[in-house]
């Protein structure tokens, strides 16, 4: 099942989607896709919109009510959910994604699409080939890296620092491409070019994408 969520808020720069799985939004920095078939809107051909996950959170459905403690000495962690099946209904996990490009007519474009993704459409995991094809070019990083990144698409609470989003995306793509060292080096250089006037920011990203970290760290896919 490649559907992972449904768009519940949409903007030209990105969207907010509700994850189908509680507490399991797509990985930070991962690439997701919104598929628009022919008949959607006024488009003449099928368009796939690509976005990078920039933020995720789980909270109660009612924004005015904060979640309360439910664990006891015997019941904690995963057992809480088994004991309280209603939590699946009263909590929800949402994630934000920034649009980084689209595919149309067999071509990959790495700039913002002219139309925003329609509300309530599904968000999918891309196929391995799609990831490969889309990330063969690195211009999309410009849409993520400060100071060029669009203001965070999230409605409501805080956001992930854009540098960390870039780093997360590079780490994710590196793994998705089967630990492609050449790609990683190229991406690192692209980032170095983007952040050339801010040395500390650059080092922040570079330290975060170093392959040694990638192998040591426990990362969810």
């Amino acid at each position, binding site marked *: 099942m490649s559907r992972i969520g449904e768009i519940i808020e949409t903007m030209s720069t990105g969207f907010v989607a509700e994850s189908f799985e509680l507490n399991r939004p797509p990985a930070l920095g991962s690439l997701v896709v919104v598929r628009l078939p022919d008949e959607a809107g006024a488009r003449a051909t099928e368009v796939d919109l690509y976005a990078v996950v920039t933020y995720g959170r789980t909270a109660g459905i009612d924004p005015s009510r904060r979640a309360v403690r439910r664990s006891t000495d015997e019941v904690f962690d995963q057992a809480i959910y088994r004991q309280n099946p209603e939590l699946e209904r009263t909590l929800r996990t949402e994630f934000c994604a920034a649009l980084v490009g689209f595919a149309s007519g067999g071509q990959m474009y790495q700039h913002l699409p002219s139309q925003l993704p329609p509300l309530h459409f599904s968000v999918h995991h891309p196929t391995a080939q799609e990831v490969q094809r889309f990330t063969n070019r690195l211009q999309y990083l410009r849409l993520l890296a400060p100071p060029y990144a669009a203001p965070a698409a999230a409605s409501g609470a805080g956001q992930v620092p854009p540098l960390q989003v870039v780093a997360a995306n590079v780490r994710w793509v590196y793994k998705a491409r089967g630990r492609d060292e050449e790609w990683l080096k190229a991406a*690192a250089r692209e980032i*170095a070019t983007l952040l*050339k006037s801010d*040395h*500390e920011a*650059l080092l922040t990203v*570079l330290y975060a994408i*170093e392959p040694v970290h990638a192998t040591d760290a426990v990362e969810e896919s």
Partner: protein
Amino acid sequence: MFKSLGLVVDGTFNSGLIVRLNPGVSLEQLRIGNFVVVDGQHNRYFSLISDMQLKATDPRMLSDPPRQASPFVAHTLAGTSTYATVEVKPMLMLEKVDETDADALLAEGTGPQPVRTIPMHFAELREATELDFATVFGQEGGSNFAMGMPLAMDLPICLNLDRFVERSNGIFGQSGTGKSFLARLVISGVIKTRVAVNLIFDMHDEYSFDKQTEDGHFVKGFKQLFGSQVLVYTLDEQMARRPGRNADVTLKIGLNQIEEADIVLLSEQLNLRPTAEATIGLLHDVYHDRWLLKLLEMTQEELDEFCRASGAHPASMASLQRNLKRLPRQDYVLPEASFSTLDDMVEALDRGKHVILQFGRHNSVLDYVLVSNLVTRRVRHRYEEKMRRYEETQKVGQEPRPLMITIEEAHKFLNPAVAGQTTFGTIAREMRKYNVTLLVIDQRPSGIDDEVMSQLGTRVAGKITEERDIEAVLTGVSNRSALRGALASLDTRQQILIMGHAVPMPIVMRTRTYDQEFYRAMGARPNTAASAEADISDLFGD
């Protein structure tokens, strides 16, 4: 395929182009003075790397460099955030033609032109290819003589010897940089291509026969390489008698041949006072050519007599006589000698023979300066006559052969104090008026008169670090700043910078090795020495 090095990002016509190196190209792969090519839209620019610079996109990085960066971080930063630029000085340009047609490229009538413009932004800098070298420096053969190879490639770089002998030239370098080896190379070329005849003043006896080099093996001399084309004259009778390496002619100098100018040149060696010149003048007025003979024969009474008659100062007369008594003590000095030996030598030169004058045991500065200047004066005098005759008759066969005179320790003849008076100074200044040019070899070019230096056509320089010497070598050369760094950064052995008349643009190269292969290229035959002797006895009788 060539390797791209970077893109032009800045520059001015006067000071050169700034090229940002590509990531992955390390400065350490490049060298000051490298021959590189900038591909403009319409022209190719043959250029030299004149400077290098390290840069960072964010100056803050320089105050806090990543100290323990992993290879990954270091590799990413190199060439992106931290990068290098090189300054490139275009020397020649060539209009682009169809690059796929190599023949058309080489056959092109116009050839590389002096630079009149510079390329626009983002023109590509690349390593020079074999074709580029061939386009600029021509191919071996004819009067093109391969002097060496580019630093990173195995193909010949040629010196145009026809152009080389048109002017006086210089070979410079600190001691130990192989100046006499370079001279041997150039002179071999001149002998091989027959563009000129040579007269070599061989102060240290290194050109005629085998000579052990500093690294211990023996190299052949010209006599062995070129056999009977080379005549060896010597001042030292003992040299003339050594089996297997005997000289052809023993040269004697007569006191009657020594002139005022010779003595003035030796002021330092003979401890002469500043008044000596005037005193000699007075002597010359009375006794003409025989003045030195007369002076040395004078008794005390005769000296006093002469002083009264001419107004010379008695003390300076006496000291002059005392000091000049050193001259007849030299073995090779006779009271009187005719010029016939020297005139024969000039005739031999005119027949196409090359002459090496060995000094043997008489290799003090006094001997060297005295004899070289005297011989050269006579040679030049004869050449002047020949040239006049040729100008009158304008018969093709009568034009004297171009003559190249090789002198070592050139600053002794060409320093600012004496350059105006020595024959060498005259030759260097008047250039090839009488078909006579100099090959000046020196380790202290700063000691040579500026006027002489600026007249030198081609300069071949080994490593030089002394600032004044670098300045001196570059006297009268355009783009000096570009070459200064190249000169100082040459390796001590086997690397030279050639600039001037005989090469289209200055170039750093590895010199050719002087070994068996070279001997073969020069056409040396086995048993050369034996056949040489046969030739000589044919020519001169016994």
